């Protein structure tokens, strides 16, 4: 091995390689997983119960505003999941990180399902408030495109006989799709849309009354932890399944030789 490569790289690269070790990942994720799951369930439960039974109704929407407590977290996770997918893709294309390939393949279906829930709950919210299940405005259309990107990634990663080629193709698709993320975020500011602009920003007070806002913070954090837990668990399973495949292949080639 080239000695310069072991000395020269700065810290982040070393960090990646530590997690690149599948054994290390299995050990660490095994410890973290129960905590992720229990914290996620607890926070989601608090948020849902608070939101459904204790938060006040919106003065115009009435109780329909309660759909916000599930719609907003899923909308956030649809985008955040895609950001994770893009990070995995960079790690895969540039650093050839084997764990990133597996994580990306496992992220795709979870992200697609969460995006589908975002679209479905949004539709269920749109009918009683706007008067329409669906409109092709810039926000709704761009989130629908995000859903298609997830589906494309799922299909592409599994489309090749040689998994490495699938991972590369999927990573490139995922990175091309990153363009869509700022479009989703700013669609409501750049163009006239039926969808309302964001209520919570980095600057200024939120435009949601505090009594309506608290449950949202809990469900957002809760569903995010659950998303992370599911993804980590699936990646764990992926690592184990790959090890099984490799061991089986080694065995068959051994028995073939003897």
């Amino acid at each position, binding site marked *: 091995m080239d000695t310069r490569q072991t000395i020269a790289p700065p810290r982040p690269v070393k960090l990646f390689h530590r997690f690149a070790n599948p054994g290390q990942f299995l050990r660490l994720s095994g410890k973290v997983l129960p905590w992720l799951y229990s914290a996620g369930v607890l926070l989601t439960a608090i948020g849902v119960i608070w939101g459904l039974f204790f938060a006040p109704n919106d003065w115009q929407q009435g*109780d329909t505003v309660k759909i916000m407590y599930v719609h907003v977290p899923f909308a956030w996770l649809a985008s955040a999941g895609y950001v994770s997918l893009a990070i995995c893709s960079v790690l895969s294309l540039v650093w050839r990180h084997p764990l990133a390939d597996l994580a990306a393949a496992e992220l795709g279906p979870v992200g697609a*399902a*969460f995006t589908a*829930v975002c679209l479905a709950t949004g539709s269920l919210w749109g009918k009683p408030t706007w008067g329409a299940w669906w409109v092709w405005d810039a926000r709704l259309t761009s989130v629908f495109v995000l859903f298609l990107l997830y589906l494309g990634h799922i299909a592409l990663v599994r489309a090749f006989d040689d998994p490495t080629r699938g991972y590369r193709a999927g990573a490139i698709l995922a990175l091309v799709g990153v363009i869509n993320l700022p479009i989703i975020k700013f669609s409501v500011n750049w163009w006239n849309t039926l969808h309302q602009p964001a209520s919570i920003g980095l600057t200024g007070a939120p435009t949601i009354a505090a009594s309506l806002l608290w449950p949202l913070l809990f469900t957002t954090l809760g569903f995010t932890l659950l998303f992370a837990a599911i993804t980590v668990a699936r990646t764990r399973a992926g690592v184990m399944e790959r090890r099984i495949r490799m061991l089986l292949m080694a065995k068959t080639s051994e028995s073939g030789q003897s």
Partner: protein
Amino acid sequence: MTHLPYIAASYVLALGVPLFFAISTTFRLRVAKRRLAVIDPRGKR
């Protein structure tokens, strides 16, 4: 005016999808662990 069916459907979806993933993944992990233990008894995880 109340819109209970819409709210109920949203919450069923939002809670059901993560639950489905959590259960199916736990099952998948258990199967993988068992198979790994059979094939590779020394790699105890």
